């Protein structure tokens, strides 16, 4: 079973995303900010990460940069999932190693489509 880490400071978003990803067959873990997610990734890298951008303590972009610097940190597929919809922000995310990008609000079809794009489904 493939693993996916949801990183989002909203409990409601994590709950909705967990339901979608579990229905898609993923073993899901959660983190409420980038620092907690980074600690988890240092112990064990998931196959995929659904990543919010704006979060307290450590935001999604800072987390992504640090994840990619970890040994084998480039192997994990990262799908940003954020209210940041400006093209400039999307380009910035891709330049820093994001594999795909979801603009909130999202639904199960969009999540499935994006995880298919990055080869996790």
């Amino acid at each position, binding site marked *: 079973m493939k693993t996916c880490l949801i990183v989002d400071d909203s409990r409601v978003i994590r709950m909705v995303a967990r339901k979608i990803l579990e229905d898609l067959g993923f073993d899901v873990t959660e983190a409420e900010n980038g620092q907690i997610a980074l600690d988890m990734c240092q112990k064990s890298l998931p196959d995929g990460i659904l990543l919010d951008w704006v979060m307290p303590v450590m935001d999604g972009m800072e987390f992504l940069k640090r994840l990619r610097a970890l040994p084998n940190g480039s192997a994990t597929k990262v799908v940003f999932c954020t209210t940041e919809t400006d*093209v400039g922000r999307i380009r910035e995310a891709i330049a820093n190693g994001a594999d795909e990008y*979801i603009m909130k609000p999202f639904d199960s079809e969009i999540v499935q*489509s994006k995880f298919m*794009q990055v080869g996790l489904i």
Partner: protein
Amino acid sequence: MRIENFELLSTLLKQRSGLVLTKDKAYLLETRLMPVARKYNLANLDQICDAVRTRQDSAMIADITDVMMSCGTHFFRDKKPFDLFSTKVLPRLRAARADTKKIRLWCAACSSGQEPYSLAMLIKEAQETLGGWQIEILATDLSEGILAKAKAGIYSQFEVQRGLPIRMLIKYFRQNGDKWHMDSGIRSMVDFKPFNLLEHPRALGQFDVILCRNVLTYFDQPTKAKTLSHMSDVLAKDGILYLGLSETVRGVSEEFKPVPDMRGLYQHADADL
């Protein structure tokens, strides 16, 4: 709704579009036709049927057909058939048409345009190997309303996130508020025209690839067979027919057979691609 009215509407739809509406799908009439009723200041479906009988209003009948035929689509639907287009179909055509450098593609029920634009983007991505080639994409649909949306090439945030890789979104679309506008260069690669699949397509010319995905499923067996026979007539001898992944020619047409190891792709029964 009165039973005679269900029969009136199902006959109308079958005659105009080939759509077979069984009684278990009668709920679709309620959900889809009420906006049409409101548009024409009618209170319910029975009044729509009375109006169809008495007025023979062609605009209203066209609206009824449009809303009943409309179905959801998205960019690169099912992904794999489009991967095959880039990796197998297009390279094969490039070799087979090296003398004429001309390829014709037909999206036979293009709905709001995502399918032909997906092809256009793939062709654009392959342009380095297609310099000097003339590639025509014809996209047809019964509904002129949906064709107008397709031609405009303007999509919601939800629509551009279904199937479209993010790198293609930022490369081929321009953001305007919460709408995304298809690049004019891609739009100009597609020629949109109204066409009813119940008619013979000979006037459209011959094609190297025909996409008729997730359409036949709405037709009865004789209409499916007739449509496939028409497509056989206008598909090049070494051409490829794309059907939906849940559709098949088995038991419907002997004019096509599956392309081995390429799900959803069909060739002429006497071809050997």
